[in-house]
Protein backbone atom coordinates (compact mmCIF):
# COMPACT_ATOMS: atom_id res chain seq x y z
CA UNK A 1 0.00 0.00 0.00
CA UNK A 2 2.88 2.33 0.74
CA UNK A 3 3.44 2.76 -3.01
CA UNK A 4 0.31 4.93 -3.07
CA UNK A 5 2.20 7.60 -1.18
CA UNK A 6 5.09 7.53 -3.64
CA UNK A 7 3.07 8.52 -6.68
CA UNK A 8 1.35 11.84 -6.73
CA UNK A 9 0.75 15.05 -8.59
CA UNK A 10 3.16 17.99 -8.65
CA UNK A 11 0.91 19.70 -6.11
CA UNK A 12 1.24 16.75 -3.75
CA UNK A 13 5.02 16.82 -3.93
CA UNK A 14 5.07 20.59 -3.54
CA UNK A 15 3.04 20.24 -0.32
CA UNK A 16 5.34 17.48 0.92
CA UNK A 17 8.40 19.64 0.21
CA UNK A 18 6.78 22.58 1.96
CA UNK A 19 6.22 20.45 5.06
CA UNK A 20 9.71 19.00 4.86
CA UNK A 21 11.24 22.45 4.82
CA UNK A 22 9.39 23.31 8.05
CA UNK A 23 10.53 20.02 9.54
CA UNK A 24 14.08 21.03 8.66
CA UNK A 25 13.69 24.48 10.25
CA UNK A 26 12.27 22.89 13.38
CA UNK A 27 15.07 20.36 13.44
CA UNK A 28 17.76 23.03 13.20
CA UNK A 29 16.11 24.93 16.05
CA UNK A 30 16.01 21.71 18.04
CA UNK A 31 19.72 21.07 17.50
CA UNK A 32 20.30 24.54 18.90
CA UNK A 33 18.13 23.71 21.90
CA UNK A 34 19.95 20.42 22.39
CA UNK A 35 23.24 22.26 22.47
CA UNK A 36 22.34 25.23 24.67
CA UNK A 37 19.50 23.77 26.73
CA UNK A 38 15.89 24.75 27.27
CA UNK A 39 17.17 28.22 28.11
CA UNK A 40 16.49 29.19 24.50
CA UNK A 41 12.77 29.06 25.28
CA UNK A 42 10.73 31.68 27.10
CA UNK A 43 10.10 29.34 30.02
CA UNK A 44 11.33 30.26 33.46
CA UNK A 45 11.71 29.08 37.04
CA UNK A 46 8.14 30.21 37.67
CA UNK A 47 6.51 29.24 34.38
CA UNK A 48 8.33 25.97 33.86
CA UNK A 49 6.01 24.55 31.19
CA UNK A 50 5.15 26.50 28.09
CA UNK A 51 4.31 26.27 24.42
CA UNK A 52 5.41 22.64 23.99
CA UNK A 53 3.24 21.27 26.76
CA UNK A 54 0.38 23.56 25.66
CA UNK A 55 0.44 22.05 22.18
CA UNK A 56 0.81 18.58 23.66
CA UNK A 57 -2.30 19.01 25.78
CA UNK A 58 -4.33 20.34 22.90
CA UNK A 59 -3.25 17.56 20.54
CA UNK A 60 -4.12 14.82 23.01
CA UNK A 61 -7.66 16.11 22.57
CA UNK A 62 -7.48 16.02 18.79
CA UNK A 63 -6.23 12.45 19.01
CA UNK A 64 -8.97 11.33 21.37
CA UNK A 65 -11.64 12.73 19.09
CA UNK A 66 -11.15 10.01 16.47
CA UNK A 67 -13.50 8.01 18.64
CA UNK A 68 -16.33 10.36 17.64
CA UNK A 69 -16.31 8.90 14.11
CA UNK A 70 -15.20 5.38 14.97
CA UNK A 71 -17.75 4.82 17.71
CA UNK A 72 -20.93 5.54 15.71
CA UNK A 73 -19.64 3.48 12.77
CA UNK A 74 -18.58 0.31 14.58
CA UNK A 75 -20.76 0.45 17.65
CA UNK A 76 -24.02 1.80 16.28
CA UNK A 77 -23.42 0.63 12.74
CA UNK A 78 -23.84 4.22 11.47
CA UNK A 79 -22.94 3.59 7.83
CA UNK A 80 -22.60 7.26 6.85
CA UNK A 81 -19.27 7.42 8.69
CA UNK A 82 -17.87 4.50 6.67
CA UNK A 83 -15.73 6.73 4.52
CA UNK A 84 -14.34 8.95 7.25
CA UNK A 85 -13.51 6.47 10.00
CA UNK A 86 -10.12 6.03 8.42
CA UNK A 87 -9.65 9.82 8.41
CA UNK A 88 -10.36 9.81 12.15
CA UNK A 89 -8.02 6.93 12.91
CA UNK A 90 -5.13 8.31 10.91
CA UNK A 91 -5.68 11.77 12.40
CA UNK A 92 -5.32 10.11 15.79
CA UNK A 93 -2.06 8.49 14.71
CA UNK A 94 -0.62 11.81 13.49
CA UNK A 95 -1.79 13.68 16.62
CA UNK A 96 -0.37 11.16 19.06
CA UNK A 97 2.91 11.21 17.12
CA UNK A 98 2.97 15.00 17.61
CA UNK A 99 2.13 14.57 21.31
CA UNK A 100 5.07 12.23 21.81
CA UNK A 101 7.37 14.64 19.96
CA UNK A 102 6.19 17.60 22.02
CA UNK A 103 6.97 15.72 25.23
CA UNK A 104 10.36 14.76 23.85
CA UNK A 105 11.35 18.30 22.88
CA UNK A 106 10.23 19.51 26.29
CA UNK A 107 12.60 17.22 28.19
CA UNK A 108 15.77 18.65 29.66
CA UNK A 109 17.54 15.30 29.26
CA UNK A 110 15.87 13.67 26.23
CA UNK A 111 18.56 10.97 26.08
CA UNK A 112 17.25 9.62 29.37
CA UNK A 113 13.61 9.38 28.32
CA UNK A 114 13.59 5.59 28.70
CA UNK A 115 14.12 6.04 32.43
CA UNK A 116 10.34 6.33 32.51
CA UNK A 117 10.14 2.67 31.44
CA UNK A 118 13.28 1.51 33.27
CA UNK A 119 11.90 2.71 36.59
CA UNK A 120 8.15 2.44 36.17
CA UNK A 121 6.57 4.59 38.88
CA UNK A 122 2.99 3.69 39.56
CA UNK A 123 2.23 6.79 41.59
CA UNK A 124 3.19 9.14 38.75
CA UNK A 125 0.42 10.15 36.37
CA UNK A 126 3.12 10.79 33.77
CA UNK A 127 3.80 7.04 33.68
CA UNK A 128 0.17 6.28 32.91
CA UNK A 129 0.11 9.01 30.30
CA UNK A 130 3.05 7.40 28.50
CA UNK A 131 1.29 4.04 28.60
CA UNK A 132 -2.11 5.23 27.38
CA UNK A 133 -0.69 7.51 24.68
CA UNK A 134 1.56 4.85 23.16
CA UNK A 135 -1.17 2.25 23.50
CA UNK A 136 -3.57 4.52 21.67
CA UNK A 137 -1.02 5.17 18.93
CA UNK A 138 -0.51 1.44 18.35
CA UNK A 139 -4.23 0.64 18.50
CA UNK A 140 -5.13 3.26 15.90
CA UNK A 141 -2.26 2.32 13.64
CA UNK A 142 -3.28 -1.33 13.89
CA UNK A 143 -7.00 -0.78 13.31
CA UNK A 144 -6.67 1.84 10.58
CA UNK A 145 -3.99 -0.02 8.70
CA UNK A 146 -5.59 -3.48 8.89
CA UNK A 147 -9.01 -2.27 7.77
CA UNK A 148 -7.44 -0.33 4.93
CA UNK A 149 -5.29 -3.29 3.95
CA UNK A 150 -8.37 -5.51 3.78
CA UNK A 151 -10.02 -2.94 1.55
CA UNK A 152 -6.88 -2.89 -0.60
CA UNK A 153 -7.16 -6.65 -1.02
CA UNK A 154 -10.87 -6.36 -1.68
CA UNK A 155 -11.89 -8.30 1.43
CA UNK A 156 -13.51 -7.55 4.76
CA UNK A 157 -11.20 -6.92 7.70
CA UNK A 158 -10.30 -10.05 9.72
CA UNK A 159 -12.52 -10.89 12.67
CA UNK A 160 -9.68 -10.82 15.22
CA UNK A 161 -9.56 -7.07 14.74
CA UNK A 162 -13.00 -6.49 16.23
CA UNK A 163 -11.85 -6.61 19.90
CA UNK A 164 -9.06 -4.17 19.10
CA UNK A 165 -11.49 -1.75 17.49
CA UNK A 166 -13.69 -1.85 20.58
CA UNK A 167 -10.67 -1.50 22.80
CA UNK A 168 -9.56 1.57 20.84
CA UNK A 169 -13.00 3.11 21.36
CA UNK A 170 -12.90 2.57 25.13
CA UNK A 171 -9.25 3.61 25.23
CA UNK A 172 -9.80 7.00 23.56
CA UNK A 173 -11.32 8.91 26.50
CA UNK A 174 -8.62 7.50 28.78
CA UNK A 175 -5.83 9.43 27.08
CA UNK A 176 -7.69 12.60 27.75
CA UNK A 177 -8.73 11.85 31.28
CA UNK A 178 -5.20 10.83 32.22
CA UNK A 179 -3.79 13.99 30.63
CA UNK A 180 -6.26 16.07 32.63
CA UNK A 181 -5.14 14.22 35.77
CA UNK A 182 -1.59 15.43 35.12
CA UNK A 183 -2.89 18.87 36.01
CA UNK A 184 -5.88 18.53 38.26
CA UNK A 185 -4.14 16.53 40.97
CA UNK A 186 -1.52 19.12 41.83
CA UNK A 187 -1.91 21.01 45.10
CA UNK A 188 -1.34 24.73 45.00
CA UNK A 189 -2.13 25.36 41.32
CA UNK A 190 -5.59 26.89 41.71
CA UNK A 191 -6.41 27.10 38.02
CA UNK A 192 -5.83 23.38 37.55
CA UNK A 193 -7.18 22.07 40.82
CA UNK A 194 -10.72 21.47 39.64
CA UNK A 195 -12.71 18.28 39.12
CA UNK A 196 -14.21 19.70 35.94
CA UNK A 197 -10.80 19.62 34.23
CA UNK A 198 -11.25 16.09 32.81
CA UNK A 199 -14.84 16.63 31.57
CA UNK A 200 -13.79 19.95 30.09
CA UNK A 201 -10.85 18.30 28.34
CA UNK A 202 -13.23 15.76 26.85
CA UNK A 203 -15.70 18.42 25.71
CA UNK A 204 -13.02 20.50 24.05
CA UNK A 205 -11.52 17.35 22.50
CA UNK A 206 -14.83 16.23 21.06
CA UNK A 207 -15.33 19.65 19.51
CA UNK A 208 -11.85 20.56 18.25
CA UNK A 209 -11.05 17.10 16.86
CA UNK A 210 -14.19 16.55 14.79
CA UNK A 211 -13.91 20.21 13.70
CA UNK A 212 -10.50 19.38 12.26
CA UNK A 213 -11.92 16.26 10.57
CA UNK A 214 -14.60 18.43 8.95
CA UNK A 215 -12.00 20.94 7.76
CA UNK A 216 -9.86 18.11 6.38
CA UNK A 217 -12.83 16.42 4.69
CA UNK A 218 -13.88 19.69 3.02
CA UNK A 219 -10.29 20.28 1.97
CA UNK A 220 -9.92 16.78 0.54
CA UNK A 221 -13.09 17.33 -1.45
CA UNK A 222 -11.39 20.29 -3.14
CA UNK A 223 -7.87 18.95 -3.62
CA UNK A 224 -8.26 15.16 -3.76
CA UNK A 225 -11.70 14.63 -5.22
CA UNK A 226 -12.78 12.79 -2.07
CA UNK A 227 -16.37 13.17 -0.94
CA UNK A 228 -17.02 12.22 2.66
CA UNK A 229 -20.75 12.42 2.07
CA UNK A 230 -23.14 15.20 2.98
CA UNK A 231 -24.82 13.21 5.73
CA UNK A 232 -21.54 12.40 7.46
CA UNK A 233 -20.48 16.05 7.54
CA UNK A 234 -23.88 17.09 8.86
CA UNK A 235 -23.78 14.59 11.71
CA UNK A 236 -20.23 15.52 12.53
CA UNK A 237 -21.07 19.23 12.61
CA UNK A 238 -23.85 18.52 15.11
CA UNK A 239 -21.35 16.67 17.32
CA UNK A 240 -19.06 19.71 17.15
CA UNK A 241 -21.94 22.03 18.04
CA UNK A 242 -23.01 20.18 21.16
CA UNK A 243 -19.52 19.41 22.40
CA UNK A 244 -18.34 22.97 21.90
CA UNK A 245 -21.30 24.51 23.70
CA UNK A 246 -20.67 22.15 26.61
CA UNK A 247 -17.01 23.15 26.57
CA UNK A 248 -17.82 26.86 26.82
CA UNK A 249 -20.43 26.15 29.51
CA UNK A 250 -17.84 24.28 31.59
CA UNK A 251 -15.62 27.35 31.40
CA UNK A 252 -18.47 29.56 32.58
CA UNK A 253 -19.00 27.20 35.53
CA UNK A 254 -15.39 27.80 36.47
CA UNK A 255 -15.90 31.54 36.26
CA UNK A 256 -18.99 31.32 38.47
CA UNK A 257 -17.26 29.20 41.12
CA UNK A 258 -14.25 31.50 41.25
CA UNK A 259 -16.06 34.81 41.37
CA UNK A 260 -19.16 33.98 43.40
CA UNK A 261 -17.07 32.30 46.08
CA UNK A 262 -14.70 35.24 45.86
CA UNK A 263 -11.67 33.15 46.81
CA UNK A 264 -8.65 35.15 45.62
CA UNK A 265 -6.57 32.13 44.60
CA UNK A 266 -9.32 30.91 42.27
CA UNK A 267 -10.02 34.33 40.80
CA UNK A 268 -6.42 35.36 40.17
CA UNK A 269 -5.56 33.19 37.13
CA UNK A 270 -8.82 34.10 35.37
CA UNK A 271 -8.26 37.78 36.13
CA UNK A 272 -4.71 37.53 34.82
CA UNK A 273 -5.80 35.83 31.59
CA UNK A 274 -8.82 38.03 30.80
CA UNK A 275 -8.22 41.37 32.47
CA UNK A 276 -4.64 41.50 33.59
CA UNK A 277 -3.28 41.40 37.13
CA UNK A 278 -0.68 43.47 39.02
CA UNK A 279 -0.01 45.44 35.82
CA UNK A 280 0.58 42.31 33.73
CA UNK A 281 -1.73 41.66 30.79
CA UNK A 282 0.40 39.64 28.37
CA UNK A 283 -2.28 37.19 27.30
CA UNK A 284 -5.44 39.33 27.54
CA UNK A 285 -5.89 39.99 23.78
CA UNK A 286 -5.17 36.35 22.92
CA UNK A 287 -7.66 35.04 25.45
CA UNK A 288 -10.35 37.41 24.30
CA UNK A 289 -9.64 36.39 20.71
CA UNK A 290 -10.26 32.81 21.78
CA UNK A 291 -13.68 33.65 23.22
CA UNK A 292 -14.69 35.96 20.38
CA UNK A 293 -13.91 33.07 18.02
CA UNK A 294 -15.95 30.83 20.29
CA UNK A 295 -18.94 33.19 20.07
CA UNK A 296 -18.69 33.36 16.28
CA UNK A 297 -18.42 29.59 16.07
CA UNK A 298 -21.44 29.00 18.28
CA UNK A 299 -23.59 31.39 16.27
CA UNK A 300 -22.58 29.80 12.97
CA UNK A 301 -23.05 26.29 14.32
CA UNK A 302 -26.37 26.79 16.06
CA UNK A 303 -28.14 28.44 13.11
CA UNK A 304 -29.09 25.49 10.84
CA UNK A 305 -28.61 27.33 7.55
CA UNK A 306 -25.04 28.39 8.34
CA UNK A 307 -24.22 24.98 9.77
CA UNK A 308 -25.34 23.32 6.53
CA UNK A 309 -23.54 25.77 4.26
CA UNK A 310 -20.06 24.42 3.56
CA UNK A 311 -18.31 27.80 3.58
CA UNK A 312 -19.77 29.02 6.85
CA UNK A 313 -19.34 25.57 8.38
CA UNK A 314 -15.65 25.65 7.44
CA UNK A 315 -15.30 29.10 9.05
CA UNK A 316 -17.07 27.86 12.17
CA UNK A 317 -14.84 24.80 12.40
CA UNK A 318 -11.67 26.85 11.99
CA UNK A 319 -12.95 29.17 14.73
CA UNK A 320 -13.63 26.20 17.04
CA UNK A 321 -10.20 24.75 16.38
CA UNK A 322 -8.33 28.02 17.02
CA UNK A 323 -10.44 28.90 20.03
CA UNK A 324 -9.74 25.53 21.66
CA UNK A 325 -6.06 25.73 20.75
CA UNK A 326 -5.67 29.06 22.54
CA UNK A 327 -7.91 28.20 25.47
CA UNK A 328 -6.70 24.72 26.20
CA UNK A 329 -3.15 25.25 25.08
CA UNK A 330 -1.48 28.42 26.12
CA UNK A 331 -4.33 29.69 28.32
CA UNK A 332 -4.38 26.56 30.43
CA UNK A 333 -0.62 26.44 30.92
CA UNK A 334 0.08 30.11 31.66
CA UNK A 335 -3.06 30.29 33.78
CA UNK A 336 -1.84 27.39 35.88
CA UNK A 337 1.51 29.03 36.55
CA UNK A 338 0.17 32.52 37.12
CA UNK A 339 0.29 33.80 39.74
CA UNK A 340 3.36 31.95 41.02
CA UNK A 341 3.42 30.19 44.41
CA UNK A 342 4.58 33.56 45.80
CA UNK A 343 1.55 35.39 44.36
CA UNK A 344 3.82 37.26 41.99
CA UNK A 345 3.66 37.31 38.21
CA UNK A 346 6.38 36.15 35.88
CA UNK A 347 5.26 36.72 32.30
CA UNK A 348 5.82 34.03 29.71
CA UNK A 349 6.26 34.55 26.00
CA UNK A 350 7.49 31.84 23.62
CA UNK A 351 10.73 32.72 21.83
CA UNK A 352 11.40 32.39 18.10
CA UNK A 353 13.39 29.12 18.30
CA UNK A 354 10.67 27.73 20.55
CA UNK A 355 8.04 28.59 17.95
CA UNK A 356 10.33 27.14 15.25
CA UNK A 357 10.52 23.80 17.05
CA UNK A 358 6.76 23.86 17.61
CA UNK A 359 6.09 24.47 13.93
CA UNK A 360 8.56 21.72 13.09
CA UNK A 361 6.62 19.24 15.20
CA UNK A 362 3.34 20.32 13.62
CA UNK A 363 4.96 19.86 10.20
CA UNK A 364 6.01 16.31 11.13
CA UNK A 365 2.43 15.63 12.20
CA UNK A 366 0.97 17.00 8.99
CA UNK A 367 3.53 15.06 6.97
CA UNK A 368 2.45 11.82 8.66
CA UNK A 369 -1.15 12.82 8.10
CA UNK A 370 -0.56 13.65 4.44
CA UNK A 371 1.16 10.34 3.73
CA UNK A 372 -1.44 8.28 5.59
CA UNK A 373 -4.32 10.13 3.92
CA UNK A 374 -2.68 9.77 0.51
CA UNK A 375 -2.49 6.01 1.02
CA UNK A 376 -6.04 5.81 2.35
CA UNK A 377 -7.53 7.86 -0.49
CA UNK A 378 -5.44 5.97 -3.06
CA UNK A 379 -6.78 2.65 -1.80
CA UNK A 380 -10.34 3.92 -1.72
CA UNK A 381 -10.04 5.35 -5.23
CA UNK A 382 -8.73 2.13 -6.78
CA UNK A 383 -11.34 0.18 -4.86
CA UNK A 384 -14.07 2.35 -6.40
CA UNK A 385 -12.53 1.90 -9.84
CA UNK A 386 -12.66 -1.87 -9.48
CA UNK A 387 -16.29 -1.72 -8.40
CA UNK A 388 -17.13 0.52 -11.36
CA UNK A 389 -15.36 -1.75 -13.86
CA UNK A 390 -17.14 -4.80 -12.52
CA UNK A 391 -20.46 -3.01 -12.96
CA UNK A 392 -19.62 -2.10 -16.56
CA UNK A 393 -18.66 -5.68 -17.39
Amino acid sequence: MIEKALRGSAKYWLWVCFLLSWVLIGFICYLYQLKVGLGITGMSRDVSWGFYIANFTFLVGVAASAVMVVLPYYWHNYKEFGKITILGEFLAVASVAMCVLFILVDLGQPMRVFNVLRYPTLNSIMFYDVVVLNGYLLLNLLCGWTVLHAEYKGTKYPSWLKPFIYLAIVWAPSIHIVTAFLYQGLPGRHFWLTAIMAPRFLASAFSSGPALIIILALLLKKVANFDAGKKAIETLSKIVTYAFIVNVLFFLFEVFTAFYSGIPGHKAPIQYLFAGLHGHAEWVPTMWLSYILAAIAIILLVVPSTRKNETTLAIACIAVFLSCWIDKGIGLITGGYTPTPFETITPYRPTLPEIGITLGVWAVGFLILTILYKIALGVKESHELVVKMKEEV
Partner: protein
Amino acid sequence: MEIKRRDFLKILGLGLVGSITSANFLFRREVKAQSYIAPPEALKAKRWGMVIDIKKCVNAQPDCKLKCVEVCHKLHNVPSIPDKKKEIKWIWEDEYEHVFPEQPNEFVAKIYAHKPFILLCNQCANPPCVRVCPTQATFKREDGIVMMDYHRCIGCRFCMAACPFGARSFNWVDPRPYLAKVNPEYPTRTKGVVEKCTFCYERLAVGKIPACVESCPDKALIFGDLEDEHSEISKILKERFSIRRKAELGTDPSVFYLI
Protein backbone atom coordinates in the same frame (compact mmCIF):
# COMPACT_ATOMS: atom_id res chain seq x y z
CA MET B 1 9.10 -26.07 2.39
CA GLU B 2 8.74 -22.66 1.03
CA ILE B 3 8.92 -19.70 3.28
CA LYS B 4 7.17 -16.50 2.27
CA ARG B 5 9.21 -13.32 2.46
CA ARG B 6 6.77 -11.90 4.99
CA ASP B 7 7.14 -14.87 7.31
CA PHE B 8 10.88 -14.91 6.89
CA LEU B 9 11.10 -11.30 7.99
CA LYS B 10 8.85 -12.03 10.96
CA ILE B 11 11.03 -14.97 12.07
CA LEU B 12 14.14 -12.85 11.57
CA GLY B 13 12.71 -10.10 13.74
CA LEU B 14 11.64 -12.48 16.51
CA GLY B 15 15.02 -14.20 16.46
CA LEU B 16 16.80 -10.87 16.77
CA VAL B 17 14.72 -9.78 19.75
CA GLY B 18 15.16 -13.19 21.36
CA SER B 19 18.91 -13.27 20.99
CA ILE B 20 19.32 -9.74 22.31
CA THR B 21 17.32 -10.53 25.44
CA SER B 22 19.07 -13.82 26.08
CA ALA B 23 22.47 -12.20 25.52
CA ASN B 24 21.47 -9.58 28.03
CA PHE B 25 20.76 -12.27 30.61
CA LEU B 26 23.88 -14.28 29.89
CA PHE B 27 26.27 -11.39 30.22
CA ARG B 28 24.69 -9.72 33.19
CA ARG B 29 27.14 -10.44 35.97
CA GLU B 30 26.86 -9.00 39.41
CA VAL B 31 29.68 -7.30 41.24
CA LYS B 32 31.31 -9.51 43.89
CA ALA B 33 29.60 -9.50 47.23
CA GLN B 34 31.13 -6.42 48.83
CA SER B 35 29.18 -4.51 51.34
CA TYR B 36 28.23 -0.95 52.05
CA ILE B 37 27.76 0.70 55.38
CA ALA B 38 26.56 3.99 56.74
CA PRO B 39 29.47 5.66 58.53
CA PRO B 40 29.16 5.49 62.35
CA GLU B 41 29.66 9.23 62.73
CA ALA B 42 26.61 9.96 60.54
CA LEU B 43 23.76 11.92 62.13
CA LYS B 44 20.54 9.96 62.18
CA ALA B 45 16.92 10.90 62.71
CA LYS B 46 13.42 9.65 62.14
CA ARG B 47 12.36 12.89 60.53
CA TRP B 48 14.68 15.80 60.01
CA GLY B 49 13.17 19.23 60.40
CA MET B 50 14.14 22.87 60.68
CA VAL B 51 12.90 25.80 62.69
CA ILE B 52 13.45 29.37 61.57
CA ASP B 53 13.21 31.85 64.42
CA ILE B 54 11.68 34.80 62.62
CA LYS B 55 12.35 37.44 65.26
CA LYS B 56 16.01 36.58 65.45
CA CYS B 57 16.30 36.31 61.70
CA VAL B 58 14.52 39.55 60.84
CA ASN B 59 16.33 41.50 63.53
CA ALA B 60 19.70 40.21 62.41
CA GLN B 61 19.22 41.33 58.85
CA PRO B 62 20.74 42.95 56.92
CA ASP B 63 23.79 42.85 59.19
CA CYS B 64 24.21 39.11 58.82
CA LYS B 65 24.48 39.63 55.05
CA LEU B 66 22.48 36.42 54.55
CA LYS B 67 25.41 34.27 55.49
CA CYS B 68 23.23 31.12 55.25
CA VAL B 69 22.48 31.73 51.58
CA GLU B 70 26.06 32.59 50.73
CA VAL B 71 27.55 29.57 52.49
CA CYS B 72 25.01 27.12 51.07
CA HIS B 73 25.34 28.30 47.51
CA LYS B 74 29.12 28.36 47.67
CA LEU B 75 29.31 24.90 49.18
CA HIS B 76 26.94 23.30 46.70
CA ASN B 77 28.17 25.09 43.60
CA VAL B 78 24.85 26.85 43.06
CA PRO B 79 25.39 29.29 40.18
CA SER B 80 24.39 32.93 40.31
CA ILE B 81 22.50 33.55 37.11
CA PRO B 82 21.64 37.22 36.61
CA ASP B 83 18.47 36.54 34.60
CA LYS B 84 15.76 36.23 37.28
CA LYS B 85 13.70 33.96 35.06
CA LYS B 86 16.40 31.32 34.84
CA GLU B 87 17.87 31.64 38.31
CA ILE B 88 18.73 28.73 40.58
CA LYS B 89 18.40 28.91 44.33
CA TRP B 90 18.39 26.43 47.20
CA ILE B 91 17.87 28.87 50.04
CA TRP B 92 16.84 32.48 49.59
CA GLU B 93 14.86 35.35 51.05
CA ASP B 94 11.54 36.87 50.10
CA GLU B 95 9.17 39.24 51.88
CA TYR B 96 6.49 37.98 54.27
CA GLU B 97 3.62 38.66 51.84
CA HIS B 98 5.13 36.30 49.25
CA VAL B 99 6.11 33.62 51.73
CA PHE B 100 2.67 33.42 53.32
CA PRO B 101 0.31 34.58 50.53
CA GLU B 102 -2.53 32.54 52.06
CA GLN B 103 -2.45 34.80 55.13
CA PRO B 104 -3.46 38.12 53.60
CA ASN B 105 -3.81 40.76 56.26
CA GLU B 106 -3.85 44.51 55.74
CA PHE B 107 -2.95 45.02 59.35
CA VAL B 108 -0.04 42.64 59.49
CA ALA B 109 2.26 43.36 62.36
CA LYS B 110 4.84 45.96 61.52
CA ILE B 111 7.73 43.71 62.37
CA TYR B 112 6.70 41.36 59.52
CA ALA B 113 5.33 43.60 56.74
CA HIS B 114 7.68 43.50 53.77
CA LYS B 115 10.34 41.92 55.94
CA PRO B 116 12.65 39.29 54.46
CA PHE B 117 11.94 35.67 55.34
CA ILE B 118 14.26 32.77 54.65
CA LEU B 119 12.95 30.14 52.23
CA LEU B 120 14.14 26.67 51.32
CA CYS B 121 12.71 23.28 50.37
CA ASN B 122 10.17 22.30 53.02
CA GLN B 123 11.20 18.62 52.92
CA CYS B 124 7.50 17.76 53.15
CA ALA B 125 6.43 14.54 54.81
CA ASN B 126 3.86 14.11 52.04
CA PRO B 127 5.74 15.57 49.09
CA PRO B 128 3.74 16.13 45.87
CA CYS B 129 6.98 16.41 43.88
CA VAL B 130 7.84 12.82 44.80
CA ARG B 131 4.33 11.67 43.98
CA VAL B 132 4.50 13.01 40.42
CA CYS B 133 8.11 12.17 39.45
CA PRO B 134 7.94 9.54 36.68
CA THR B 135 11.42 8.11 37.32
CA GLN B 136 11.84 8.31 41.11
CA ALA B 137 14.63 10.78 40.49
CA THR B 138 13.21 12.66 43.43
CA PHE B 139 12.22 10.50 46.37
CA LYS B 140 11.80 10.58 50.12
CA ARG B 141 14.44 9.01 52.32
CA GLU B 142 13.61 7.16 55.52
CA ASP B 143 14.77 10.14 57.54
CA GLY B 144 12.32 12.43 55.75
CA ILE B 145 14.74 14.17 53.40
CA VAL B 146 13.33 14.69 49.92
CA MET B 147 16.32 13.73 47.78
CA MET B 148 17.36 14.44 44.23
CA ASP B 149 19.09 11.83 42.07
CA TYR B 150 20.50 13.97 39.29
CA HIS B 151 21.66 10.89 37.42
CA ARG B 152 18.12 9.82 36.81
CA CYS B 153 16.26 13.11 36.27
CA ILE B 154 14.90 13.43 32.73
CA GLY B 155 14.07 17.10 33.12
CA CYS B 156 10.31 16.86 32.60
CA ARG B 157 9.72 19.50 35.33
CA PHE B 158 6.55 17.82 36.58
CA CYS B 159 7.94 18.22 40.12
CA MET B 160 8.17 21.98 39.60
CA ALA B 161 4.52 22.11 38.62
CA ALA B 162 3.63 20.00 41.66
CA CYS B 163 5.64 21.91 44.28
CA PRO B 164 3.40 24.57 45.86
CA PHE B 165 6.41 26.32 47.41
CA GLY B 166 8.52 27.19 44.36
CA ALA B 167 11.41 25.35 45.96
CA ARG B 168 12.71 23.77 42.79
CA SER B 169 14.99 25.21 40.14
CA PHE B 170 15.69 23.94 36.66
CA ASN B 171 19.01 24.15 34.84
CA TRP B 172 17.83 25.95 31.72
CA VAL B 173 21.43 26.17 30.52
CA ASP B 174 24.81 24.80 31.55
CA PRO B 175 25.32 26.27 35.05
CA ARG B 176 29.12 26.17 35.02
CA PRO B 177 29.78 29.49 33.27
CA TYR B 178 27.84 31.15 36.11
CA LEU B 179 30.11 29.83 38.82
CA ALA B 180 32.86 32.27 39.60
CA LYS B 181 34.43 29.93 42.14
CA VAL B 182 33.96 26.25 42.60
CA ASN B 183 33.98 23.85 45.53
CA PRO B 184 36.02 20.93 44.14
CA GLU B 185 34.58 18.55 46.71
CA TYR B 186 30.99 18.82 45.46
CA PRO B 187 29.62 18.35 41.93
CA THR B 188 27.90 20.99 39.86
CA ARG B 189 24.72 20.13 37.98
CA THR B 190 24.30 19.70 34.27
CA LYS B 191 21.83 21.45 31.98
CA GLY B 192 18.39 19.91 31.84
CA VAL B 193 17.95 18.65 35.41
CA VAL B 194 15.97 19.98 38.36
CA GLU B 195 17.71 20.77 41.65
CA LYS B 196 16.90 21.90 45.17
CA CYS B 197 18.02 21.89 48.80
CA THR B 198 18.63 18.40 50.23
CA PHE B 199 19.17 19.33 53.90
CA CYS B 200 22.91 18.79 53.31
CA TYR B 201 22.57 14.99 53.20
CA GLU B 202 26.29 14.78 52.39
CA ARG B 203 27.18 16.67 55.59
CA LEU B 204 24.81 14.62 57.74
CA ALA B 205 26.66 11.52 56.52
CA VAL B 206 29.87 12.79 58.07
CA GLY B 207 28.27 14.02 61.28
CA LYS B 208 27.77 17.68 60.40
CA ILE B 209 24.57 19.71 60.55
CA PRO B 210 23.39 21.61 57.44
CA ALA B 211 25.66 24.44 56.38
CA CYS B 212 23.01 27.16 56.65
CA VAL B 213 22.27 26.23 60.27
CA GLU B 214 25.93 26.08 61.19
CA SER B 215 26.77 29.37 59.52
CA CYS B 216 23.95 31.52 60.92
CA PRO B 217 25.70 34.03 63.20
CA ASP B 218 22.50 34.65 65.18
CA LYS B 219 21.50 31.04 65.70
CA ALA B 220 18.15 31.75 64.08
CA LEU B 221 18.03 28.34 62.41
CA ILE B 222 17.56 25.19 64.45
CA PHE B 223 17.95 21.73 62.96
CA GLY B 224 16.96 18.40 64.48
CA ASP B 225 14.76 15.33 64.71
CA LEU B 226 11.07 16.22 64.84
CA GLU B 227 10.16 12.79 66.13
CA ASP B 228 12.63 12.81 68.99
CA GLU B 229 10.85 14.33 71.99
CA HIS B 230 14.08 15.42 73.63
CA SER B 231 15.60 17.20 70.65
CA GLU B 232 16.01 20.97 70.83
CA ILE B 233 13.72 21.44 67.87
CA SER B 234 10.87 19.42 69.42
CA LYS B 235 11.14 21.28 72.69
CA ILE B 236 11.07 24.68 71.07
CA LEU B 237 8.09 23.75 68.89
CA LYS B 238 6.19 22.68 71.98
CA GLU B 239 6.92 25.93 73.77
CA ARG B 240 6.43 28.54 71.07
CA PHE B 241 3.86 29.28 68.39
CA SER B 242 4.98 28.36 64.91
CA ILE B 243 3.48 28.38 61.42
CA ARG B 244 4.25 26.51 58.23
CA ARG B 245 3.85 27.60 54.64
CA LYS B 246 0.54 26.55 53.04
CA ALA B 247 -0.06 23.86 55.65
CA GLU B 248 -3.67 23.62 54.40
CA LEU B 249 -2.45 21.81 51.27
CA GLY B 250 -1.59 18.76 53.33
CA THR B 251 2.00 18.37 52.20
CA ASP B 252 3.12 18.47 55.84
CA PRO B 253 6.21 20.68 55.59
CA SER B 254 9.15 19.99 57.92
CA VAL B 255 10.25 23.63 58.03
CA PHE B 256 8.63 25.72 60.77
CA TYR B 257 8.60 29.48 61.28
CA LEU B 258 8.63 30.64 64.89
CA ILE B 259 6.52 33.75 65.34
